[in-house]
C-alpha cells in the first residue's frame, strides 16, 4: 500500500465514517477528515521535491476482477499530482464554506462531499481504463445529490440536466473503452499506450477518428466545450456553494485531464487532424462565453459563463500541440480551479448575507464590507489575468503556444482577455461600488474568521502561482514533454516499429 492509496481511500473511509457517527458531530468530523486527507496528500509532492521522476510514482497494480482482466492500477505523474492536491485542498475549504450554509441533512451532505473527493482523486490517478470509467461515474452520483437536495429552486431540473448531459457522453466513452479492450486484450492504460506507441496496436484512420470522437465528446461535455456547455450555468446557479466550488474547480478539470491523458496520447493522429476544428470551438467558446457572461444579471451565471471562456483557453492550449500550449493548459486548469473556486466562495458569502444572486440586489458592498471587497477584487484581478497573479501565467503560455501553431488563433483568443476585463470589472462596479442601499447596508457584514480561513489559502496561491511558477511547473513540463513525444510519432513511424517484431515472431 502506497501513500497514494491512502490518499485515495481515506475519503472513502471518511464517507463511511460520516454515515455512522451522530449528526451533530458530522461537520467537525468532515473538516478534520478532509484536512487529514490534505495533509497526507502533501506527501505526494515528495518525489517531485527531491528529483524529477519520469513516469509514474506511487504505483499500485493489483487484480480487481479476474475476467475480464480489470486491475486496480493507480499511479501519479506530473499531470495528476497537482490535480490531486487541488482536490484535497478544495474539499476542506468546501466543508468550511458550508459550515452555516447547509442546515438540513447535514450528515448526508458531508458524506457526499467525501464520496465526491474519493471519485475525483480516483479519476486523476486511475491507470486502468475500466477503473477510470468507474471513478468517472462515481463522481456523478454525489454531485447529482449535492445539486438535487441542497440546491435552489430549480435544482431538480439542473441536476437531471447535469446527469443526462454527462451520461450521454460517458456512454460513448464506455463503448470506446470496450472496443479498445477487444483489440488490445487489456484495460490497462499503460499497456495500451505502449502497444499504440510501438505500433503493435494500430487503427485505420476512420476507426481512430471514431474512437477519438467517442472519448472527445465525453470529455468535451465535461469541460464544457462550446456548444456542449448549457448544463453548466444551470448546475452552478442551482448548486450550493460547495457544490459550485467542487464542480468548477475540480470536476471540469476531469474533462481537460481526460483530453490530455487519453485523447491526445492514445489517438495522436486523429487528435492532430482534429486540432483546427477543436481550436475553432475553443476560441468560439472563449469569446462566446465572455460575451454571454457580460450580460448576465445573475452572479453565479456570470461566473459560470466565464468558466466556459476560461476553459476554452485550456482546450486551445492542449490542441496547439506545443510545449508552451500544454504547460499553459495544465497551469490554467489549476489557476481556474483556484480563482474561479474563490469567486464561487465569495459569491456564496454574499448570498449568505443578502440571500440573492442577482447583481441588482447589491451595490455599495464596499462600504459595509471593505475586507470582503478587497478579497473579491484580488480574485477578480486574478480571474482577468493581471500579470503577477496566477491566471496570467497560464493564459500567456497558452496564447504563446497557440501563436506557434497558428498566429490567427492567438489573435482571436486574446480578445477574450479584453472581454474578461469588461464583464468582471462591470460586475465589480455594480456589486461593490456606489452607495450602499438600505438592504445592503443592513444585511452585509464583513468577513468572519471562518470565512477568512477558507479564502486566504486561495488568495495566497494566486500570488504564489503568479510569481514563483517554478514551484509548480517542472513536473508539469516533464509530463507534457512525454505526452508530446508520444503524440509526435507519426503513424508511419509506428508501422516501421512493427516490422522487426513481426520478423522476430516468425
Amino acid at each position, binding site marked *: 500500500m502506497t501513500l497514494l492509496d491512502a490518499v485515495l481511500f481515506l475519503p472513502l473511509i471518511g464517507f463511511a465514517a460520516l454515515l455512522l457517527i451522530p449528526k451533530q458531530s458530522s461537520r467537525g468530523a468532515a473538516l478534520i477528515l478532509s484536512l487529514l486527507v490534505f495533509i497526507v496528500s502533501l506527501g505526494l509532492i515528495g518525489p517531485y521535491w527531491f528529483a524529477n521522476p519520469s513516469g509514474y510514482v506511487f504505483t499500485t497494480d493489483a487484480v480487481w476482477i479476474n475476467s475480464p482482466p480489470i486491475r486496480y492500477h493507480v499511479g501519479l505523474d506530473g499531470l495528476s499530482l497537482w490535480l490531486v492536491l487541488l482536490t484535497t485542498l478544495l474539499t476542506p475549504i468546501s466543508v468550511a464554506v458550508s459550515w452555516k450554509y447547509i442546515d438540513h441533512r447535514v450528515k448526508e451532505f458531508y458524506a457526499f462531499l467525501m464520496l465526491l473527493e474519493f471519485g475525483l482523486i480516483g479519476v486523476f490517478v486511475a491507470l486502468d481504463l475500466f477503473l477510470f470509467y468507474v471513478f468517472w461515474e462515481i463522481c456523478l452520483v454525489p454531485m447529482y445529490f449535492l445539486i438535487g437536495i441542497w440546491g435552489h429552486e430549480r435544482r431538480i431540473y439542473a441536476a437531471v*440536466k447535469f446527469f*443526462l*448531459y454527462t451520461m450521454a457522453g460517458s456512454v460513448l466513452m464506455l463503448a470506446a473503452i470496450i472496443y479498445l479492450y477487444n483489440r488490445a486484450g487489456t484495460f490497462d492504460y499503460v499497456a495500451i499506450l505502449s502497444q499504440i506507441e510501438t505500433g503493435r496496436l494500430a487503427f485505420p484512420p476512420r476507426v481512430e477518428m471514431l474512437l477519438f470522437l467517442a472519448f472527445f465528446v465525453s470529455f468535451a461535455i465535461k469541460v464544457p466545450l462550446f*456548444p456542449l*456547455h*448549457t*448544463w453548466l450555468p444551470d448546475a452552478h446557479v442551482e448548486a450550493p456553494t460547495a457544490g459550485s466550488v467542487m464542480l468548477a474547480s475540480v470536476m471540469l478539470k476531469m474533462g481537460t485531464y481526460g483530453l490530455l491523458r487519453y485523447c491526445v496520447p492514445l489517438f495522436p493522429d486523429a487528435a492532430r487532424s482534429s486540432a483546427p476544428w477543436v481550436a475553432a470551438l475553443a476560441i468560439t467558446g472563449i469569446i*462566446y462565453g465572455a*460575451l*454571454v457572461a*457580460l*450580460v*448576465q444579471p445573475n452572479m453565479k451565471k456570470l461566473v459560470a459563463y466565464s468558466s466556459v471562456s476560461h476553459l476554452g483557453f485550456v482546450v486551445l492550449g492542449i490542441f496547439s500541440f*506545443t*510545449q*508552451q500550449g500544454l*504547460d*499553459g493548459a495544465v497551469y490554467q486548469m489549476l489557476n481556474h480551479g483556484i480563482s474561479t473556486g474563490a469567486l464561487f466562495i465569495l459569491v456564496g458569502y454574499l448570498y449568505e448575507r443578502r440571500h440573492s444572486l442577482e447583481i441588482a440586489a447589491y451595490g*455599495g458592498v*464596499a*462600504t459595509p464590507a471593505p475586507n470582503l471587497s478587497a478579497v473579491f477584487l484580488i480574485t477578480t*484581478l486574478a480571474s482577468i489575468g*493581471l*500579470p*503577477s497573479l496566477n491566471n496570467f*501565467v497560464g493564459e*500567456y*503560455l497558452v*496564447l*504563446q*503556444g497557440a*501563436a*506557434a501553431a497558428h*498566429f490567427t488563433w*492567438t*489573435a482571436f483568443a*486574446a*480578445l477574450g*482577455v*479584453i472581454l474578461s*476585463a*469588461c464583464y468582471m*470589472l*462591470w460586475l465589480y*462596479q455594480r456589486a*461593490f*461600488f*456606489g*452607495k450602499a442601499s438600505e438592504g445592503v447596508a443592513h444585511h452585509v457584514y464583513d468577513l468572519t474568521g471562518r470565512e477568512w480561513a477558507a479564502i486566504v489559502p486561495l488568495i495566497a496561491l494566486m500570488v504564489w502561482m503568479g*510569481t*514563483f*511558477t*517554478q514551484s509548480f*511547473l517542472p513536473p508539469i*513540463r516533464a509530463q507534457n514533454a512525454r505526452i508530446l513525444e508520444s503524440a509526435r510519432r507519426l503513424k508511419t513511424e509506428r508501422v516501421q516499429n512493427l516490422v522487426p517484431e513481426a520478423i522476430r515472431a516468425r
Partner: protein
Amino acid sequence: MQLWLIPLFPFAGFLVNGFFGRRMSKLAVSLVACGSVLLSFLWVLKTIAALGAPEAAYLEHYYSWIQSGALNIGVDFAVDRLTEVMLLVVTGVGFLIHIYAVGYMAHEGGYYRFFAYFNLFMFFMLILVLGANFLLLFVGWEGVGLCSYLLIGFYFLEKFATDAGNKAFIVNRIGDFGFSLAVFLIALHFGSLDFGRVFSLVKDMPVEARPGWITAICLLLLVGAAGKSAQIPLYVWLPDAMAGPTPVSALIHAATMVTAGVYMITRSAQLYLHSPFALNIVAIIGVATAFLAASIGLVQNDIKKVFAYSTVSQLGYMFLALGCGAFSAGIFHLMTHAFFKALLFLGAGSVIHALSGEQDLRNMGGLAKKIPITCATLFCAGVAIAGVPPFSGFHSKDAILGAAFEYSPWMYWLGVVTAFMTAFYVFRALFLCFFGSYRGHHHPHESPLVMWAPLAVLAALSLGGGYINVPKFLEPMFPLAAESGDDWTVYVSVAAGLGGIALAYLFYVAAPSVPEALAGSLHGLYRLIYNKYFVDELYEEVVVRPVVDGSRTLLWRGADASLIDGAVNGIGRLARGIGGILKFAQNGYIRDYAGWVVLGSIAVVIYMAFHGGAR
C-alpha cells in the same frame, strides 16, 4: 547593486499601509508612504552614482519566472542610460507628488487607502522601467493600469468615478491586446523576450532589412502604447480619468504612467529602426493627436479637463518625436513635461483646494492676490509649456520640432499650430483663474507649506530643467541627428507660443467679450469641439451598444437559451415521447400481452408466406 530595493521600498510601504493603515494615524501613514518613496529615490541616486553613465546595460538576474519549452523568462532588472532618466523622473517627481498629497488629501476619507494605492503604483512603475524583458515590462504595464483604475475610482461612491475607472482599464486592455500580440510575435521570431537578446539580434540584421513581421510587431506595440499613452484612437479614457484626486492626475495621468508608451517605443527603438513604415505611423498618430487634443483643450471649462487634453496633446508631441526617429528628443520632452505638467496639475489642485472643490474656470478669477504662490508657480509652468525661451519646454519642444522639420515639413507646421494652441489654452486657463475679478463665492486661502513646497521645486525644474541635456546624455544609445542649419524654424515656433499667450491675454484680460462673440458666430464649430468631436458618443453607438445588445439578444437569448438549450430539451422531450409511446406496450395486462403475441405470430406467418421463409 541591489536594484530590487528600488521597487521594494514602495511595495513595503503598500503592504504596511494596506494591511495596517486603517489603524494607523495619518501622520504614520504619510511617513510610511513618503518615506518609502524617498528611500527609493535615494537608492536610485546611489545606483546612478555607482554606475555613472553606463555604456551598456547593467543587469541583475534574480530568478527564473516562467520556463517552458525554449522560452525562459527571468525576473531581471537592468539599468542603462534610458532607465536612469526614467528612474530619476519617476522617483523624483513621484516623491514630490507624494509630499503634496499629504496636504491635499488631509481632509479626505480613505487616507490610508489612497497612499497604499499610490505606493503600489510606484512599485509597478519602477518594475516597468527596470524590467529587462518584455514580459516583466508588461507586469509593470498592467500593474500601473490597475493602480490607475483604483485611483480614478477612488471616490467609489460616485458612479462617474467608477465608470471612468472601468473605461480607463478596458480601453487600456484594448491596447494591451496589441501589446501582448507583439510579445507573442517577438518570442516566436527571436526565441526570447530579453531586451538584450532581442535587440542584439535585431542589430545583427542587415540595416536595409525590412521584414513584414517587424512592421507587424512595431504596429502592435504601437497599439499598446496608444492605449497607455492616450493616443488616437484610444485617448478617450484620459480626460475621464480626471475623476480621481488631483495628485493622481499629476503623478499617474501626467508625469509617469501615461509616458510608459513613449518609454516602451524608445526601448524598442532598434525594432522600429527596421520599419520606417511603422515609424511613419507613429509620427502621424502623434502629430494628429497633438493637434486634435489641443483643439479640444481650447474650449474646456473644467481646469483639470484643459490640462488633461493638454497632456494628451503633449504626449502626441513625444510620439511625433519618436516617429521622426528623434528618440532622445521624445525622452527629453517626457522629462520636461513631467516637470511642468505635474506642476500644472498640482497647481490646479492647489486652486481647487483653495476653492473647496471648485473646478469650473467660469467660477474663478482674480485669484492672483489671494493665492500668490500657487499663481506664481503656475505661471512658471505656463511659460515652460508654451515654449518660451529659455525655459524647459522650449528646449525639448525645439528638439522635437527641429526633428519634425527634417522628417516632414507638414508635420512641423502642424506642430507649430499646436504650439500656438497650447500656449493659448494654458494661458486662457491661467488668465481666467488668476486675472480679472473673482466670480465665485468661496473664501480662497493659500495652501499649506507641505503643498506649496513641492510646487516651488517643480517650478524651479520647469524653468531650468531644459538645461539638463538629455539628448546628449542619451547619445550613445540614440545618435543625434545632424542639426539643421535653419534657425528660422526655432523663431517660428517661439513666435507661435508667444502669439498664443498674447491672444489669450487679448481675449481673456483685455477684451473679455470677444470669445463669447466668437463662440456665437462659429456656433457649429464651437459645439463640435466643445463636445470633443462626439468621439465618445461614436464609440458608444458603434462599439459598446452593439456588443452588449448583441450578446444579450443574439447570443444569450438566441443561441444559448433558444437554439442549444432548445435542442437539448427537445431531445429530452423526444426521448420522453418515445418512452411514452412504448409504455403502452408495458401496461401489465396479460390480455394485452397475449394480443401482442397473436399479432406478432400473424406478422411472422405473413412474412414467411410472402418470402417463402422456412424452406
